[in-house]
């Protein structure tokens, strides 16, 4: 099988100039196949080119203040600190927070290539790109796992 056959279609995307608050809201509303919540979305520019990915990991990173990553200060956080930091960063743009070096896979790629990429780069999701390099869909780890399950069970 090839990437195209197991990918899910793009339902919604983020724009680079969306605020964090807007992004979180869209992510909340968006459901992917099997009714599961989305934990990461593609960021496309006006021409439909993929410019980044925003995952909940990226959001966590921006909520945790930089000085806590510079030094071991986790023990000194106070109750309500997370909520305060959320207020501070709610207006930040998606373009400032997103991961920009996105690993993509061609729609014609064999599934083994997708599996290899996912494991090597510790990915949760891989955007699938068409002939023009623009994204046409997305594969989640679970989609790939379903393909593996299918292959294993059909064989036996």
């Amino acid at each position, binding site marked *: 099988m090839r990437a195209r056959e197991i990918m899910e279609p793009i339902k919604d995307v983020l724009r680079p100039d969306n605020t964090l608050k807007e992004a979180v809201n869209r992510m909340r509303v968006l459901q992917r196949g099997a009714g599961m919540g989305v934990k990461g979305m593609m960021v496309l520019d006006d021409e439909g080119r993929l410019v980044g990915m925003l995952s909940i990991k990226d959001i966590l990173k921006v909520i945790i203040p*930089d*000085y*806590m990553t510079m*030094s071991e200060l986790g023990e*000194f956080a106070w109750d309500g600190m997370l909520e305060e930091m959320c207020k501070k960063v709610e207006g930040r743009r998606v373009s400032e927070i997103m991961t920009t070096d996105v690993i993509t896979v061609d729609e014609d790629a064999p599934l083994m290539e997708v599996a290899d990429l996912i494991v090597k780069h510790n990915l949760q999701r891989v955007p699938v790109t068409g002939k023009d390099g623009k994204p046409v869909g997305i594969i989640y780890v679970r989609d790939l796992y379903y393909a593996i399950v299918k292959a294993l069970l059909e064989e036996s």
Partner: protein
Amino acid sequence: MVQETAEAAKPFVMDATFWTATIIFFLAYAVIVSEKVHKTIVAIVGASLMLVLKILEQYEAFHVEELGVDWNVIFLLIGMMTIINILRPTGFFEYIAIKSAKIGRGEPLRIMMVLFIVTAVLSAMLDNVTTVLLIVPVTFLICDALEVNPIPFLIMQVMASNIGGTATLIGDPPNIMIASKAKLNFMDFIIHLTPAVIIMMVVMLVLIRVVFGRRLKTREELKERIMQMNEREAIKDPVLLKKSLFVLGIVLTGFVFHGVLHYEPATIALFGAGLLLLLSRTHNPHHYLAEIEWPTIFFFIGLFIIVGGVVKVGLIKWMSLKVLEITQGNLFATSMIIMWFSAVASAIVDNIPYVATMNPLVIDMAKQLWPHETGISLLQHSELMPVWWSLALGACLGGNGSPIGASANVIVVGMSERAGQKISFVRFLMYGAPIMVLTVFISMIYVWLRYYVIGF
């Protein structure tokens, strides 16, 4: 040694070698200031050119004290950096910073003052960059907890680190370099510079009170956040912390007595580094040694050789004659000019290359003034001492004058930007420049009163 005296006696000629060395020297400094190429690379390339073009023999660069690398400076830095690399991850600095905030009872103004003192003291005993690198993240945390703007805290900490560093031989690179060249010991700095620094600290604390007293306010429930922090949780490795503090104690005691015991400071630092590495029971010292700031070390090495080149061809001697012409041998005027010039120069350019150049210049000047003296009686001629102190005060305190005046400034501005609190060039100048002028002014009065009026 025969070679050195032969060099000194050699008549001064502006030949091709002279001009080549001069061009390498000024070109290297210009590129360092322009920041087009990393300063360490400039220093290494400049130094190698001095050798390749035979301006300096490799032997002179590596083994002749007057012309080459000052290994005392290099190994003092390496030793202290190793000790600090082992102390750092224990959580010592974080502990001190949280403890300071609690001593300040959660009151922003009081915390600013306590952290100002703590930063100055730590910078006097350890290096400035490490001190701010570890105190600044805690400062951000404290300011967030108290909901106050961290920028004034950060700028005041930079000021404290540069002022505190001025107080001791090991506090700031200019002092380390001056001490080595002039054969001054740790206690000389304590006796001559520390009192001036204490005066500056008192004046600064009064100023902080006046300037920030009304502006820094917080709410009672926010103070409670600070009081509920348990500073003991900051300590990650209590055993290694105890060992580090034990060795640091030995090293500082060693510095106090190194003059009496006739040990060079580098010997003490290297002994401390070796002892702590042994006590840490690490089987892989790679990590501790890799974190030594090698680019800084090589910057020093390169600069020493570049300066050695222009010393050998006589450029520095020529410059020292010019200074004497201007001041007409009046050493009070020389001290004051050197102090203010050093301060302004250090605010604009790195103070390390500046002092590397000034050291031989001062010595050459002394040789003109007292041609019959040699050794310690020349280097520490009673009339020359205020000149050394003026150079140290100017070069260290000048670091506060601009955001690029000292490494600590650059580090804090960078950290602040990453944390989303950009300190603009102008904002830094608004604090830094007046404080530089004020502290250098205090130094000027101090040097004048102490050495030219009281005469002690």
